C-alpha cells in the first residue's frame, strides 16, 4: 500500500462514503439517517406550512398589484391591519415584561399555591378561544359584575390578545431560567455587580433568546387572533375591527382576493417583526 492510500484510508468514514456514492467531497455531507430526517421534516413542513402559505400568496397575486393597493387604500381594511399590528406589538411588549417576571417568580421563589399557578398558566392554551371571548364578555362587557365595561373599545382587543398570549413568554423563559448557572450570578456579585447589573449583564443575555422566542409566538398568535375578541370588541369598522374579522367579512362578501391580500400583508409584517425581534435578541446577547 502506498503512503497516499494509507492516508486516504485513515480518513473518517464520513468523507469516504459520499465519495463512494459518486458525489464530490466538498461541502457538508449528510449521513443516511440525517438525510432521511431532513427529508421527512421538509415534506411535513411543505404539506402543513409552505403549500398553504403559497396558496394564499397565489390567490392574492391573481388579482395583481391592484388587489393589494385596493386593500391598503380601503380605509377600513388599513385601519384593521393597523389596529391588529399595533395592538399585537403592545401586547407582546407587555408579555415580554410580565412573562419574564412570572417565569422568574415561578423558578426562583417558593410560595404556597405555586403548583396551582404552574397549571393555571396553561389554561388559556386549552380553552377554546370563543369560550375565552364569552368569559371576557361576561366579565368586562355590559353588566359586568366587576363594574368594568370595555365592550366595543380597543381596550377589549388588547385584553383579548393579552389573555390568549400570556403563557408564551412564561413557558419559553421558565426552563432556561431554571437551568441558569447560579454561580455565575454569585461570581458577578462578588465582583461588585448590583442585583440590577447582574440581571442586565448576566441573566438577560442568557434568557434573551428564550424571551425572543416567546415574544415571536405571542406576536404571531395575536396577529391571527379571532375568537376571543369577536364578542367583546364589537367589530366596529375603523374602530375595533381587527384584520382577522376583516378577512372573514371579505370572504363572506365573496371577495377572496381581498381576504388573501390582507393575509399576505399580515404575513409580510409578521416576518419583518420576527426578524427584528431576532436582531434585537442577538444584540442583547452580544452586548452582555
Amino acid at each position, binding site marked *: 500500500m502506498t503512503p497516499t492510500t494509507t492516508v486516504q484510508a485513515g480518513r473518517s468514514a464520513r468523507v469516504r462514503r459520499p465519495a463512494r456514492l459518486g458525489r464530490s467531497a466538498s461541502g457538508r455531507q449528510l449521513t443516511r439517517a440525517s438525510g432521511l430526517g431532513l427529508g421527512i421534516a421538509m415534506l411535513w413542513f411543505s404539506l402543513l406550512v409552505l403549500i398553504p402559505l403559497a396558496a394564499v400568496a397565489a390567490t392574492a397575486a391573481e388579482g395583481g398589484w391592484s388587489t393589494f393597493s385596493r386593500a391598503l387604500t380601503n380605509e377600513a381594511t388599513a385601519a384593521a391591519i393597523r389596529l391588529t399590528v399595533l395592538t399585537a406589538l403592545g401586547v407582546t411588549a407587555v408579555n415580554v415584561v410580565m412573562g419574564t417576571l412570572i417565569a422568574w417568580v415561578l423558578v426562583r421563589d417558593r410560595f404556597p399555591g405555586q403548583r396551582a399557578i404552574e397549571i393555571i398558566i396553561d389554561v388559556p392554551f386549552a380553552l377554546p378561544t370563543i369560550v375565552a371571548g364569552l368569559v371576557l364578555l361576561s366579565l368586562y362587557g355590559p353588566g359586568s359584575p366587576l363594574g368594568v365595561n370595555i365592550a366595543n373599545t380597543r381596550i377589549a382587543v388588547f385584553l383579548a390578545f393579552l389573555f390568549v398570549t400570556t403563557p408564551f413568554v412564561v413557558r419559553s423563559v421558565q426552563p432556561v431560567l431554571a437551568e441558569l*448557572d447560579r*454561580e*455565575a450570578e*454569585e*461570581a458577578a456579585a462578588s*465582583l*461588585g455587580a448590583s442585583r440590577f447589573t447582574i440581571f442586565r449583564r*448576566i441573566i438577560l*443575555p442568557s434568557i434573551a433568546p428564550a424571551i425572543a422566542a416567546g415574544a415571536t409566538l405571542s406576536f404571531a398568535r395575536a396577529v391571527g387572533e379571532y375568537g376571543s375578541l369577536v364578542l367583546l370588541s364589537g367589530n366596529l369598522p375603523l374602530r375595533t375591527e381587527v384584520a382577522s374579522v376583516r378577512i372573514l367579512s371579505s370572504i363572506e362578501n365573496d371577495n377572496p382576493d381581498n381576504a388573501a391580500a390582507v393575509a399576505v400583508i399580515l404575513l409580510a409584517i409578521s416576518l419583518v417583526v420576527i426578524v427584528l425581534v431576532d436582531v434585537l435578541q442577538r444584540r442583547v446577547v452580544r452586548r*452582555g
Partner: protein
Amino acid sequence: MSIEIIDVGKRFGDFVALDNVSVSIPTGQLTALLGPSGGGKSTLLRIIAGLETADTGRIEIEGVDATRLPPQKRNVGFVFQHYAAFKHLTVRRNIAFGLEIRRRPKAEIRERVDELLALVHLTPFADRLPAQLSGGQRQRMALARALAVAPTVLLLDEPFGALDAKVRKELRDWLRRLHDEVHVTTVFVTHDQEEALEVADEIVVINEGRVEQIGSPDDLYDRPANEFVMRFLGPVTQLGGQLVRPHDIRIHTDSPQPGDVLGRVTRITRVGFEIRVEVATGTGEVTTVTLTRDALPTLGLEVGREVALRPVAGAGLTSPADRPALRAAG
C-alpha cells in the same frame, strides 16, 4: 491577621454545617481548608465571601467587620469549582467584568486585562468564548477575573476539583508560583490532602462542622492532634496498639531489642517504587510497613519470615482512643 472567623455557626435545617468555628487566617499566605465532603469547609468559604450568611458569630476582613456586608462590598475574589464563566462574554470581557462595573477608564481596563491575560497565559485566547476553552483554561480565566479587581482576599472553592489528574497537578504548581508572585491572601478549599500538603502555607482541617487542627503541612503530618487528622492526611497502620504511618516503622531481622514488636510476614506487595509488607504480630494486629524497592533485598524479607518492628525515632504516634473531637462532633 487578614481574616478573623469568630465563633461562626451555620445550620441548614437540622444539619449543622458549622459549629462555632474560630480561625485566624494570616495576611499574604496561602491557607487550605481541608476536610471530607460535607464537612462544612465550602460553607465557611462562602460565609467569608458573603454568599451565605452565618447564623451566629462574626467575620472580620482586614480589621473590618464584614458579617453583615453584602458580597459586593467585601472586595473578595471568588473562584468556583465549575468556573462560573460568563458564557456569553469573551475571555477578555469576562476578566474585564469587575473593572467595567467599577467604571474604570477604558484604557486602564485594557492595560490591566492584558496584564492578567499574560499572567494566566491566556493572551492568545483573549477573544474566545469560554465554551471554546479547556477546563484548565477556563479556571485560569476565572482566576484572572477574580484577581482583576485587586481583591483583599482570594477565595477558591475546590478550584481544581473538576479537572483531570494531570491538569490538576499542573494548575496546583502554577497556583503556588502565582501566589509567590501576587502575594494576595488566599484561602482554598480542598478535600485532597496531597493538594493541601503541597500548596498551602497553613492548613485548617475541618470535619463535621468543627476545626480539628490548624498548622503547617509538616505539623499536621508529623504531629496530628488526633486520629482523624492522622488518618485524613496520610496512610496509617497500627503497631503495638498505636497508630503510626507505615513508612515510619523500622523492620529488621536481627535479634529483637526491648520494645520491638515481633511478628511474621504474611504478604509482600509491590506498587511501583513502593513495597508493602504485611506483618501479623503476636498481639493479633496486622501491621503494614512500606519500604522502598531497594531496601527489600538487603533485609532479605520473604513470606513466613520472623521479623521485629519498631517505630522510627520522631514518628508521629496517636493512640486510637485519643479522639475527643471526633466523638464530640458525632
